[in-house]
C-alpha cells in the first residue's frame, strides 16, 4: 500500500504527500536544460517565470528527539510588503516499490511577524540561503531550476 493509504487506515488526518526529485546541473549546460523544459512544460511560447527568493530555516532542538525545522520563504521582488510562506517538510520516505521518494509537507501563508513568532515559540535561526532561477509547471508538477547562494 502506498503511504497515503497506510495513514488513512490508521485513521490519521488526511496526509499531504508530495513526490520529490532533486538533481544538479553544471552552469555551462543550464541553457540546454531550460530549453528542453520550456518545450516540455506548459506555456511554451510565453516568458519563463523567474523567481528570486530568500529562505530562512528555523529549527527547534528537542533534547532526546529529532529536531523540527520550519522554512520561511519570501520573494525578494516583493520587498516593501513581501508575502511570507511557511513550509514544513518531513524527511523523504524512500519506498522500494516507487521510483521517486515521497515526503509529507504542510504549507501556509503568514504575515511578516512570523520570524518574531517562531523565535518566541522557541525556534532558533538555523541557516538561510537565496534561491534565484526559473520555475516551470506541467499540470500539477512544479520544476524549479535555481542557483543557491548565501
Amino acid at each position, binding site marked *: 500500500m502506498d503511504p497515503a493509504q497506510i495513514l488513512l487506515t490508521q485513521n490519521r488526518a488526511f496526509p499531504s504527500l508530495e513526490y520529490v526529485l532533486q538533481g544538479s546541473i553544471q552552469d555551462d549546460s543550464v541553457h540546454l536544460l531550460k530549453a528542453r523544459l520550456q518545450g516540455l512544460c506548459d506555456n511554451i511560447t510565453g516568458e519563463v517565470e523567474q523567481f528570486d527568493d530568500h529562505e530562512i530555516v528555523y529549527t527547534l*532542538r528537542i533534547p532526546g528527539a529529532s529536531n523540527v525545522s520550519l522554512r520561511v520563504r519570501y520573494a525578494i521582488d516583493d520587498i516593501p510588503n513581501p508575502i511570507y510562506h511557511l513550509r514544513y517538510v518531513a524527511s523523504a520516505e524512500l519506498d522500494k516499490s516507487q521510483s521517486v521518494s515521497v515526503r509529507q509537507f504542510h504549507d501556509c501563508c503568514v504575515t511578516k511577524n512570523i520570524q518574531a513568532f517562531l523565535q518566541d515559540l522557541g525556534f532558533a535561526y538555523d541557516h538561510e540561503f537565496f534561491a534565484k532561477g526559473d520555475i516551470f509547471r506541467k499540470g500539477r508538477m512544479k520544476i524549479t531550476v535555481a542557483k543557491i547562494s548565501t
Partner: protein
Amino acid sequence: MDRPTSLAQNKLNEYDKLQQILDKVRDLKQSLANFFAEYEHGQPSWPTILDEMNVLSSQITTLRSSIRNMLPLLRTNSIIPMCISPENDPHVEQLTERRLSIFNHDFMPQLLRTKNLPEIEERERLLNTNANTNMNNSFGRPITSPNEIYSRVQELNTVLNSIGDIFRHTKEMTDKSEKQFDLQRFTNPGDTKRLLEAMNSGVGLRVPSDTSSSSITTNDQTNLNQQMPTQPQRPQPPTLKIKTTSRPNR
C-alpha cells in the same frame, strides 16, 4: 574487350551512386515537408519535434557520408553545360519536379557554382599564407656544415608538428560525432551531493560559531524549554476558522 565493359560498369556504378544520393535527397525533402505540415497544424509537442529532428539529422548524416564516399569521383569529373536556351524546357521541368523551367544564362552559374563559402575561403587563405611563411625559411639554402644539418632537421620537425596540429584541428572541427556529445559531463555527482545536503539539512550553509558561545546558547535553550509547555512533535496544520452569518428572512 575488357576495357569498354569495365568502363561501362564503372559508369553504371557511378550512376547508381548518384541515384542513391538523389533518393536520399528526396527522402530528406519529404521529411522536411512532413515537419512543416505538422508545424502548420498547430503546436506539436516537444517529443514529436525531437523525433522529427532526429530523423532529419540522421538523413543529413547519411547524405554527408555518401557524398564523402563520392568525393574522388566528383573531383575527377566536371559538369559542363551543353545547351542553354532562354525558352521553357519541358524535360528540365519534369526532371526538377517543376522547380526549374528555364535553363538560361542567369540561373546556370548559380546551379553550377564552385566558389567556396566565405569561411572556408578564409581558412584556405590562412593555410596558404602560413604555408608560404614557413616555406620562405630554409628550403633553398645549401647545406654547409653538420650543425646546419641538425638545425635543418629541427626546422623540419617543427614544420611537420605544425602540419599535424592543423590536421588534428580540422578533424575536430569537421568531425563532430555523437560520441563527443555523449562524453560531455553535465552534472558533477559531488556537487549534487553537496547541494542536496545543503537544501535538505543545511549542511554547508550554517555560519560557523565558536564552541564556547554555542554551549551558552544550548544552556539557554534547555532553560527555555523547561519553562514553556511541551511542544508537539509535529506542528499541527492551521485550524480553519469559518465565519457564518445568518441569512436574512425574505
